[in-house]
């Protein structure tokens, strides 16, 4: 079936799954809910695979392929079509989203088996797939924004899935409101784009841009506004605070939405808008700086966390920073490459963490784990693979993608040694905290009551997705491997048309030069002995020293550097600073000015005042009605005399 000419099928499948489960699933047995939800995403995945097959046969001049379905709104010269498009970038994102999404759906059938609201969970999860695929397939900024907000909504619903728990409900609100701050910038950015190009359609914008150069200041403004949206969605400094709290949601949600797919939407958007960013060097620099600083900063917080999911959350923030660093130094393909490998290994890490939590009976504190290696071997081995991948140990997926980003930061067209240094330092910390997590969880002696906690390996429907993702975490990066022995980077080459089609003339040649620079053997040697690999191994060794060889060292170190330790342990007090600077003043103004003055005094005062005035004046006036006939007579006479005087004297009617 030609999916390419019926792109809407890819969106209709998960939406239908969500609707069916959401409306009817309440009374259904779990197996029925499963078959609807898993069926919907599996068919989506198959449709995507078929789409990719068709796409690969598409002649070059038909890329990007656009399917225009209907005019959504038209007012004056503002016109938005519901249009979907497919190009190489979309293909990569579609494959990642539908594949990882499908695996996590399957995993969830095991993880959520004993939870209430089973049908609701899968309805939300399918709805999320629908919005994420809309975001990825969108052919213009407004349809993209629909997907963008839709995934935010699903994120809110799923973080607060256990909404009876106050912390979960609060975390959902925090995520929604914090990303909304970024979305304001994104919205204004879209309006700016329309004001500049008279269109929100990607193809139209980029063609216009290639033919008519715009002022750099204008493009920089637009890019910074768009990037603000990405900062909120992808949890970068200073709006990253919602992502660690988002761990209140069920673990499969953390894996799918808050690691593999939704949070990467910002990176995708920056890569999608690359013709604009490439023409705004200052905006690019800001993207790179925010990315590099976040990568390092979040990694430092990750060092001290004891909650297994929080470590992974800060790790996600940090890895998203790497993706932005890649985009910011002009290596969009490397950023997207890291997005893909990250989806594999971070999705896997979260699912493994979920498996550990499941095995431990809902315990998330690593200080109460230990020695789980022998008891849950599948989880152990898959998690070890994911850890090796994220640490950037050669041969695993993360190595190739992270190396490409750092290489671009070191020697690419927008290279900057400070950013590179931050990236390498972040890589060292990443390796350290990830192995710390593995050592604390799986090695050493058990730190829990072995009689109370019955540790058990997860069921098959949870471990099989783990193994598939582990496979991807090893081999998912090998597209780039031939580059190291003098071949070509297949991943970058595949994506290249997206990033060079409308690129400004200068960077085109630079990209070509950097690809054919070093000789084959030297490139391999250089990559294997480069700083990223050295610091990764160093991080591993330090973690081994701290948590296996001599467990007293970290405590001593913490005591000797108490100030720094407590600063990082309390996450740099950022939540407290935000609370003091923004939340509490806002709350104070809301309570003392808006509530007690504006609402109670002015608005309620006016409304109640009108009522009180009518009642009290009525109360006074009714005393005139004495019931005494003669007083009425007197009033009539006074009235008659008054009128007569009025007519004769005042108005002079004689």
């Amino acid at each position, binding site marked *: 079936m030609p999916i390419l000419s019926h792109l809407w099928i890819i969106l209709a499948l998960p939406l239908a799954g969500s609707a069916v489960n959401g409306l009817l699933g309440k009374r259904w047995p779990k197996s029925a809910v499963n078959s609807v939800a898993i069926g919907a995403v599996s068919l989506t995945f198959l449709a995507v695979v078929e789409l990719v097959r068709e796409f690969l046969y598409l002649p070059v001049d038909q890329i990007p392929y656009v399917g225009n379905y209907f005019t959504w709104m038209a007012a004056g010269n503002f016109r938005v079509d519901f249009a979907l498009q497919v190009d190489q970038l979309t293909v990569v994102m579609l494959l990642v989203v539908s594949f990882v999404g499908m695996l996590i759906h399957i995993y969830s059938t095991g993880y959520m088996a004993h939870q209430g609201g089973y049908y609701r969970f899968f309805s939300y999860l399918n709805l999320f797939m629908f919005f994420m695929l809309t975001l990825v397939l969108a052919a213009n900024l407004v349809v993209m924004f629909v997907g963008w907000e839709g995934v935010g909504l699903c994120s809110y619903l799923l973080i607060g899935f256990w909404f009876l728990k106050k912390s979960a409900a609060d975390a959902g609100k925090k995520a929604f409101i914090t990303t909304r701050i970024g979305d304001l910038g994104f919205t204004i950015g879209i309006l700016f784009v329309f004001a500049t190009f008279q269109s929100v359609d990607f193809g139209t914008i980029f063609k216009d841009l290639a033919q008519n150069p715009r002022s750099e200041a204008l493009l920089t403004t637009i890019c910074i506004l768009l990037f603000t949206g990405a900062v909120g969605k992808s949890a970068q400094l200073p709006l990253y605070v919602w992502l660690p709290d988002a761990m209140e949601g069920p673990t499969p949600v953390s894996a799918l939405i808050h690691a593999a797919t939704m949070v990467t939407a910002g990176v995708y958007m920056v890569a999608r808008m690359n013709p604009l960013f490439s023409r705004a060097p200052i905006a690019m620099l800001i993207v790179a700086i925010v990315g590099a600083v976040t990568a390092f900063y979040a990694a430092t917080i990750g060092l001290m966390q004891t909650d297994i999911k929080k470590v992974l959350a800060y790790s996600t923030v940090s890895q998203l920073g790497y993706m932005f660093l890649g985009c910011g130094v002009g290596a969009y393909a490397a950023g997207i490459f890291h997005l893909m490998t990250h989806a594999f290994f971070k999705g896997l890490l979260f699912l493994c963490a979920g498996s550990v939590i499941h095995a431990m009976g809902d315990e998330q504190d690593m200080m109460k784990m230990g020695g789980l290696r022998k008891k849950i071997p599948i989880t152990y081995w898959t998690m070890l693979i994911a850890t090796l991948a994220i640490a950037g140990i050669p041969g695993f997926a993360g190595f190739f993608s992270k190396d490409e980003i750092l290489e671009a930061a070191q020697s690419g067209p927008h290279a900057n040694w400070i950013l590179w240094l931050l990236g390498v330092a972040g890589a060292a910390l990443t390796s350290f905290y990830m192995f710390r997590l593995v050592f604390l969880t799986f090695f050493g002696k058990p730190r829990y009551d072995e009689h109370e906690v019955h540790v058990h390996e997860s069921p098959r429907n949870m471990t099989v997705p783990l193994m598939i993702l582990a496979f991807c975490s090893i081999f998912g990066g090998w597209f780039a491997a031939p580059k190291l022995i003098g071949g070509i980077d297949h991943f970058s080459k595949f994506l290249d048309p997206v990033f060079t089609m409308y690129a400004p003339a200068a960077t085109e040649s630079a990209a070509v030069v950097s690809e054919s620079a070093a000789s084959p053997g030297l490139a391999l040697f250089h990559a294997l002995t480069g700083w990223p690999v050295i610091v990764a191994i160093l991080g591993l060794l330090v973690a081994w020293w701290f948590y296996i060889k001599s467990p007293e060292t970290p405590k001593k170190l913490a005591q000797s550097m108490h100030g720094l330790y407590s600063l990082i342990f309390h996450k740099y007090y950022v939540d407290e600073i935000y609370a003091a600077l923004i939340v509490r003043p806002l709350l104070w103004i809301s309570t003392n000015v808006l509530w007690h003055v504006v609402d109670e005094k002015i608005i309620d005062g006016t409304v109640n005042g009108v009522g009180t005035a009518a009642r009290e004046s009525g109360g006074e006036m009714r005393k005139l009605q004495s019931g005494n*006939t003669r007083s009425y007579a007197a009033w009539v*006479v006074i009235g008659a005399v008054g009128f007569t005087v009025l007519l004769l004297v005042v108005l002079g009617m004689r």
Partner: protein
Amino acid sequence: MIVPVSYYLVLSAILFGLGVVAFVFKRNVITIFMSIELMLNAVNLAFVAFARAHNQLDGLVFVFFVIVVAAAEAAVGLAIVIMLARNRESLNVERVNLLKF
């Protein structure tokens, strides 16, 4: 000799004034009733005087209307007065003040 209109009008005004004063100051409900009749007839007198002065019938027609209304009013009013006298055993309006706030 023709009596001037102003004489009639002055007489009418005096009668009307007496009616008003009695209406306000008297306490007996029958007296009040009679003072209303007095005022009506003062007005009738003015109507008749004007009708004659202008040689037109309009004033006379009005007078008939006023007499009819006064008769109807007397019928209803006296009925009320009788009920009042039966219930209160008094004709003092000061004591009929239930219909108030």
